[in-house]
């Protein structure tokens, strides 16, 4: 979809046009599901488990049912429906056993939220507490309790996933490339480390909310704050065995998603309450606390990496084992594992690789997609590891990265050969290194160090990510011409604020040759009126829907030209058009306006020809394959977006406090369709990355109760946490099959921010931190309690078993 057009030939693509949804959002007119009310609507509340694992002996809801205004009370025993994206493992309400703190065991719908709350209070549950399995590494032990003893009987997507019945392993992804034994044997150095990070909450400002009306004849209407209308419908229909055309899903404005609303959430719960309440619409909105513990989070990760390096500093072999904590249910976590598995080395060429990635059930709130889809977590590990490797072998970390970075001709872990059109991680690395004056302390910085007494350090981390999606992922766009020659565009990709609709509007206007004002993107998504889209996830929206929009625009023009050719009695080849009319190119006065053809052209005698002009565009991912389940070989990547962050921090060596002074980020986006929107994604993701890097994360007590399900105890970054300087760069290596050369960048800005921070802090303080978030006290502890890291280097030309702390940093 990329034509080699000069930027000056483009009217809208590449320009920072205003967002299509600003006015509604700035005036408060935009209606979110949170704001919606329907006649007769009931309000739902849920009874939640105070235990991480317990048998439900009995639920007494008699008192709740007797409260005036209570219209439906429901428990898991009545609901045999199981749900699951990839592994069908979750009941709507817990049945028999609760598997995590905060899991819903009963629900109420009532005339008011207050009555519903009182009714939930009146429900009593008799639990028999069971020993929970809380840490994912403990869950692998042979004597660990099984979170899902019936795993063997669950259905799952066999083409992509491998659950291990009789264990807590929900999926095992394997990748084998080359000969790792040989690679290690030839290595001068072998270095191994382990890195980790906790579960994290997405924190959309609008918590999960849905309204569902289960009408007569099993016709179900769902209004929901979700990312993917067709996936909600599909999973819903599978769970309830309903025909797809019985169920309608409508998504209006959405107050943030970040992956937490990618699949199905609270819709089935509202649905069963509505059915039980005689078809009255039922609304459930998660409280902020429920958003943390009832709804899914990001998986924790333990990542062990062993690397063999030649004496010249080239990585020869890498053995990678990922342990992903799925929590109580598999949801997206199994696919996070799969997508992370085939990307596990980051943007580096590893000739011989061995990867085992496990998704592990535990008795904790469950893991799902979160911006970056595993890449934020494992890049924390891999980019800290690259730093450590470089220092251990006495190379500058930047040089080491440059030497091993993917480049044209490199083969990815799955065997895909990169070309010069694939994007350039090297350019991104070099750009951010230059931007932060990497490797030196400027005069200004030296002055600042003197003034503050704090030490300045600089670090770099690179990144890559491809959309994680089924190989046959498809979408469609419809462009309908209105009577006045303007157009309305329908698609089921949702705009959660990221701005894809604005970019697609620019693409449609560009391809049609119309002024921007003539192009409107229809906002609410509706499975009954919009054409199919798989999901709004994976940074694939602009690429797939942008391409479909181009094809739809061309289809519309083709259909208009056909009518014009007939009216003007000319051949198609001789026609041209502008924003208002189709004309004969060598005789432009002979023309016909779009408006006169928009809904059917009337000949002078009244005869009609043509009919409503509707352009249809569909696009399906090209050339992707399933991966070989034993070797991981195949083509999973629609495209790779590469990037890098450079960070400057200053730290107080006494207290462990630190400040991020500067961040420079660079991404190879192919083409920045709307530069200010790209910048919005770059900075927004960077800040979310800083939250993950500096302070966010789930904290549990020993019984598995979540201790910090609130903004009081789980801070997210505020404006005051912004680095003093933020710089955003784009490299534009056109993606040949991308719309105007573009590839996605929605997630990438969040990836590797934590590692850049870790690397910069190490440089500033010497603290080797292997777990994120890096709180001030972690730096303080690391500085005071340097644990010896003996036996991590098992082979080196300088003798084996050297402790890392003894090795001088070249950059020092």
């Amino acid at each position: 979809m990329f034509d080699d057009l000069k930027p000056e030939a483009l009217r809208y693509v590449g320009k920072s046009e205003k967002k299509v949804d600003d006015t509604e959002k700035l005036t408060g007119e935009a209606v979110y599901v949170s704001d919606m009310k329907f006649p007769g609507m009931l309000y739902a509340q849920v009874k939640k488990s105070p235990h991480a694992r317990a048998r439900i002996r009995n639920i007494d809801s008699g008192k709740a049912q007797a409260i005036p205004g209570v219209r439906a009370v429901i428990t898991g025993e009545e609901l045999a429906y199981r749900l699951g994206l990839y592994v069908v493992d979750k009941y709507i309400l817990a049945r028999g056993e609760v598997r995590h703190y905060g899991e819903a065991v009963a629900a109420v719908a009532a005339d008011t939220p207050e009555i519903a709350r009182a009714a939930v209070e009146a429900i009593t549950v008799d639990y028999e507490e069971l020993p929970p399995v809380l840490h994912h590494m403990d869950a692998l032990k042979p004597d660990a309790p099984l979170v899902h003893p019936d795993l063997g009987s669950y259905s799952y997507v066999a083409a992509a996933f491998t659950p291990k019945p009789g264990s807590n392993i929900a999926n095992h992804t394997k990748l084998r490339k080359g000969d790792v034994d040989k690679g290690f044997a030839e290595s001068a150095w072998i270095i191994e480390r382990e890195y980790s990070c906790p579960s994290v909450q997405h924190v959309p400002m609008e918590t999960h909310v849905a309204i569902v009306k289960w009408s007569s004849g099993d016709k179900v209407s769902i209004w929901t704050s979700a990312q993917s209308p067709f996936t909600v419908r599909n999973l819903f229909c599978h769970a309830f065995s309903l025909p797809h055309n019985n169920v309608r899903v409508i998504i209006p404005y959405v107050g943030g998603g970040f992956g937490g609303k990618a699949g199905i959430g609270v819709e089935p719960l509202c649905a069963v309450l509505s059915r039980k309440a005689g078809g009255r619409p039922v609304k459930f909105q998660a409280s902020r606390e429920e958003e943390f513990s009832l709804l899914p989070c990001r998986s924790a990760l333990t990542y062990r990496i062993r690397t063999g390096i030649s004496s010249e500093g080239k990585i020869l072999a890498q053995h990678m084992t990922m342990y992903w904590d799925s929590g109580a249910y598999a949801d997206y976590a199994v696919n996070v594992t799969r997508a992370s598995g085939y990307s596990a080395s980051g943007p580096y060429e590893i000739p011989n690789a061995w990867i085992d990635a496990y998704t592990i059930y535990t008795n904790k709130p469950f893991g799902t997609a979160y911006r970056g889809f595993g890449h934020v977590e494992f890049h924390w590990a891999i980019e800290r590891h690259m730093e450590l490797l470089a220092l251990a072998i006495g190379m500058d970390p930047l040089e080491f990265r440059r030497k091993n970075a993917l480049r044209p001709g490199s083969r990815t872990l799955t065997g895909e050969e990169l070309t010069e059109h694939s994007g350039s991680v090297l350019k991104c690395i070099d750009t951010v290194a230059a931007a932060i004056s990497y490797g030196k302390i400027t005069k200004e910085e030296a002055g600042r160090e003197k003034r503050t007494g704090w030490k300045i350090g600089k670090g770099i981390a690179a990144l890559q990510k491809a959309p994680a999606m089924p190989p046959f992922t498809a979408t469609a766009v419809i462009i309908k011409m209105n009577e006045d020659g303007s157009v309305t565009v329908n698609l089921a990709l949702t705009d959660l604020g990221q701005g894809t609709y604005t970019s697609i509007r620019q693409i449609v206007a560009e391809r049609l040759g119309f002024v921007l004002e003539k192009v409107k993107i229809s906002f609410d998504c509706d499975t009954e009126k919009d054409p199919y889209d798989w999901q709004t996830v994976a940074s694939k929206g602009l690429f797939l829907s942008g391409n479909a929009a181009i094809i739809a625009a061309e289809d519309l023009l083709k259909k208009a030209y056909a009518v014009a050719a007939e009216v003007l009695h000319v051949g198609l080849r001789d026609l041209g058009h502008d924003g208002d009319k189709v004309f004969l190119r060598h005789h432009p006065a002979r023309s016909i306006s779009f408006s006169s053809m928009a809904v059917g052209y009337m000949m002078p005698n009244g005869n009609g020809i043509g009919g409503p002009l509707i352009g249809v565009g569909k696009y399906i991912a090209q050339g992707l394959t399933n991966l070989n389940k034993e070797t991981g070989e195949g083509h999973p990547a629609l495209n790779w977006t590469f990037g890098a962050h450079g960070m400057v921090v200053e730290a107080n060596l006494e207290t462990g406090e630190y400040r991020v002074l500067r961040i420079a980020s660079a991404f190879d986006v192919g083409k920045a369709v709307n530069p200010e929107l790209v910048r919005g994604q770059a900075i927004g993701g960077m800040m979310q990355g800083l939250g993950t890097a500096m302070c966010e994360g789930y904290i549990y007590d020993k019984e598995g109760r979540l201790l910090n399900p609130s903004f009081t105890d789980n801070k997210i970054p505020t404006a005051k946490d912004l680095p003093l300087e933020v710089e955003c760069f784009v490299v534009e290596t056109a993606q040949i099959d991308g719309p105007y050369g573009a590839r996605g960048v929605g997630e990438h800005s969040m990836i590797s921010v934590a590692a850049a921070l870790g690397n910069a802090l190490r440089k500033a303080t010497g603290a080797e931190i292997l777990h994120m978030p890096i709180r001030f006290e972690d730096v303080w502890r690391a500085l005071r309690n340097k644990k010896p890291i003996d036996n991590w280097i098992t082979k080196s030309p300088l003798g084996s078993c050297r402790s890392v702390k003894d090795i001088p940093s070249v950059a020092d």
Partner: protein
Amino acid sequence: MMKIKVTVNGLEYERDVAEHRTLLHFIRDDLGLSGTKEGCGMGECGACTVFLNGKVVNACLVLAAEADGASIETIEGQAGSFGLSDIQKAFEKNHAVQCGFCTPGMVMSVKELLRHNGKPTPEAIKEAIEGNFCRCTGYTQIIEAVLDLTGQGDLKGELKHV
């Protein structure tokens, strides 16, 4: 229940409210002004920021009963018949809106700032919106909107092409 009388965006309302009803739920549910959002209900996130008698408050922390006789300003009162307010226009021009859920509260906090400070520094702007969480934008384009509006547009950053 008790009867209260308030003026919201220049219009008078008289309603019966329960003693425990928050000003936020009163505004959203009783008056139908849903532009003011609820992000946490605990006074942490700032999504429900409104003016109460000329001062910004988190409406989730105020009881409707306390607002009896008060004058209240919400996001619905910001745009006039001639279109968006200057603050709203600056947000639009500077791409300061993403999902939009924090936007109404953010606009109110910026309005409060500009009442007292005609030319705020970036630090002063950060201070003023510190209580308004935004998970999407990373705040920078919001800060730039305020700088632009107060004649400091030269401090605005841009996407750099390599």
